[in-house]
């Protein structure tokens, strides 16, 4: 059934997990919770995890989704890992700027630049 499509697709670029959102709207609580759980599992899998979140398909984002991303960011830090966000559309980036979360997250304009920024 269509409902069983997972909300994230995960690929690998060397030691970086690249995560894309398959639904263009990180919208309802259930979806956000599932994404959060998947990210937590990925972060817990390895020491010093490197995660890249690609927002290319995302057209809509709520503050609940921002909370989930902050959780992920905190968890990555606890695991001495690195998190990058990329390909954020201007309207969505504006939400990060208004909430000043552009200062909390490391946001890069393109996937290539984001991948190059991991240490």
């Amino acid at each position, binding site marked *: 059934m269509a409902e069983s499509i997972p909300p994230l697709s995960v690929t690998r670029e060397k030691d970086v997990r690249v995560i894309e959102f398959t639904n263009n709207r990180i*919208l*309802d*609580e259930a979806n956000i919770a599932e994404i959060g759980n998947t990210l937590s599992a990925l972060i817990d899998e390895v020491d010093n995890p490197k995660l890249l979140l690609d927002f290319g398909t995302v057209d*809509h*984002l*709520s*503050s*609940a989704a*921002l*909370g*989930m991303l*902050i*959780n992920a*960011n*905190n968890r990555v830090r606890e695991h001495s890992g690195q998190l990058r966000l990329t390909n954020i559309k201007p*309207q969505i980036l504006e*939400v990060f700027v*208004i*909430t*000043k*979360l552009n*200062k*909390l997250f490391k946001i890069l304009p393109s996937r290539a630049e984001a991948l190059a920024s991991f240490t």
Partner: protein
Amino acid sequence: MAVAGSNRHGDTNPPAPRGRGANGRQGSAHHLTFTIPSELSAGRKVQQQILEAIEQKGFHGHNFFAINLALEEALTNAIKHGNRLDPHKKVHVEAKVSARRAEIIIEDEGPGFDRSNVPDPTAQENLEKCSGRGILLIESYMNRVIWDRGGRRVRMVKTNKKTQ
């Protein structure tokens, strides 16, 4: 559907189902009212209907995005924080949408809150908190926001100015 160029009052449309107001072309307004239980799924259905109305009235691009975001935040606030998901409490929603202006009124049956006591989520000490941004987003994206009835009601207005 009304014929382009005409603007009839009086009803050429069949009776509208509950939750919908009179439908019309430019020059008249959509007026929608809803009373829903304190469930996020019910809020999403209301959100969808209001978004259809604003899109039909010509709110696109950034104006559409803004209302979508503020509306979602305000509904979540009413359902989750105002009414605390209490099944005995309702949320009342009203939307008045014309080609120039969308006004959305949301009222919960909770205890209310003091707007001046809400911490600034952009302050350094709050930046890593997982919640508390809804009001900031509502006030940033709508042109006019009024909190009244002890914080139980929010009235927010977006004007449909043309933006690139």
